[in-house]
């Protein structure tokens, strides 16, 4: 057998001591989320809520835009992070039925860094900044709600009216939306 232990002693890592207890260890995903949460800058327009504070891998984010077309609304998202984070991106869904070109009626969100452009170097802050940006600058070229995207492309003023209409709980083109005003 190779004399690994001799080599290890040569490395003189004497300070790193660990005993062989069977106590549960903080997982790598938890550790990374803890780091990300401590670096979160929510500002005045966002807040988080943890239904179970011991479970930091599942929480909700509320965005209340203070400018743009969605000003005055209160939008809720669930974050579900698995043990493979940050290799896997967090799963983010909008819990309300809203009128938005990049969010479908089921709450799926089309944000590049949540899927095709996710990289482990990105953190939760990047995701929430991305979400916030969707409300400031809805993007007609990546549609999930095709009708909303068409409206935004063809008639920006009409789209703005539809946003107001939908946010009060009204319907747009026969589709009813949830009331999301503060």
């Amino acid at each position, binding site marked *: 057998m190779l004399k690994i232990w001799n080599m290890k002693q040569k*490395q003189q890592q004497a300070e790193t001591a660990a*005993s062989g207890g069977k106590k549960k260890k903080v997982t790598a995903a938890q550790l990374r989320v803890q780091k990300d949460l401590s670096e979160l800058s929510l500002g005045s327009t966002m807040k988080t809520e943890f239904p179970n504070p011991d479970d930091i891998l599942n929480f909700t984010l509320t965005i209340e835009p203070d400018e743009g077309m969605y000003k005055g609304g209160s939008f809720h998202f669930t974050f579900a992070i698995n043990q493979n984070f940050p290799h896997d991106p967090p799963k983010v869904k909008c819990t309300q039925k809203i009128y938005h070109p990049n969010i479908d009626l*089921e709450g799926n969100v089309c944000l590049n860094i949540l899927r095709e452009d996710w990289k482990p170097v990105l953190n939760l802050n990047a995701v929430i900044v991305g979400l916030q940006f969707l409300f400031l600058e809805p993007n007609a070229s990546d549609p999930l709600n095709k009708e909303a995207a068409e409206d935004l492309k063809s008639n920006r003023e009409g789209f703005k009216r539809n946003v107001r209409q939908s946010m009060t709980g009204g319907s747009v083109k026969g589709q009813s939306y949830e009331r999301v005003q503060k």
Partner: protein
Amino acid sequence: MAEVLQKNGVSAPRARWKHLDKILTRPGPFTDEDWVPGEDVIEGLSRTKILVIGAGGLGCEILKSLALSGFKDIHVIDMDTIDVSNLNRQFLFRHSDVGQPKATIAAKFVERRVPGVKITPFVGKIQDKDEDYYRQFTMVVCGLDSIEARRWINSTLVDMVDEDDPDSLKPLIDGGTEGFKGQARVILPTMTSCIECQLDMHAPRAAVPLCTLATIPRQPQHCIEWAHIIKWEEERKDVTLDTDDPEHITWLYQKALSRAKEFNIEGVTYSMTQGVVKNIIPAIASTNAIVAASCCNEAFKIATNTNPPLGLPGGNNYMMYSGDDSIYTYTFEHLKKDDCPVCGNVAKKLEVNGDMTLESFLESMAEKPEAQLKKPSIRSEEKTLYYQSPPSLEEQTRPNLKKELSELLENGEEVVVTDPAFQISFKFKLLFK
């Protein structure tokens, strides 16, 4: 070996090992000066208890090669059963074995073919076993297809290292393949770069933008992903998708097919649906053979010390193999990361009074010269003890500050302390005085 030279009949006990014995019974140009060839080395090799994780494409190759390299006490873990689609490359299985557990069948087959080898199967998840189980092995060889499982065994082996116990350090040999590409790497937990340090070596799964799936699918795969991600949620929200359930796959296949028709896309098939949904990566038998062989040679060198293995501190530890554009291999040293969440800092033992409040404990952290934390956040595996941020979580965990450590934690439990001012986190194993 003397035995082989004396008896020249077929029954000579070491006839099968004639070639290996040339290496095991005489010093070579790479052997240490104090290395003694012969009986002890052979004996040591056959006594080495080695664990193989995975009995699939790589696992079959690894089990076979280890048995043919002189290992005699092999254990194997796999949670899967044999599927008919495995038979093209997982050569320890036959058609009549379909539906049976891989670990058991593989163990039986190799035991039958290589007399004298004992293979102990375990059908289940690696997470079912604890440190006591892993402690019995000399080393671990992985032939896995999941990053999650690799991360789990890696952090388990890193955490097991006990400074006072040489036997607690288990070399980890990891093989992986994807089509014509693959890698073999050797990790000496806490000493050299670990799987968590090398996490960015795994290419993330290629994903298609959600809006493409929702609006303008161009490929049959887009239609399948649409059925998988969007349609299932819409129509069968309450059913958990089981990718091994033919009814579920058929449902997705039908939905994908009708969507493909709508967009004039051809090529959606049942097996493509299965492949996309289960993220099946094309497996090439010979790539498995190359990577597994490399892993087993490293295991052999570590067990016998006949030649320098991959993975020595300060040397190369990662062999990449790329066979998709002609052929290229490159062996290099992947450096250990100082801020690696797994091996960057092994938990330090810290004696504290159980009746100390969490608040005073955190204050003492601020005074500790090696920590000097300004805004520490702390948790155990089960509990969020105190977080400085975000505000809602701070509020929820604030009451813990007044509680005593012994109310919040068990004796010997591990806590992790982080601070935005530092890249690395601090791990402590709190022992109550």
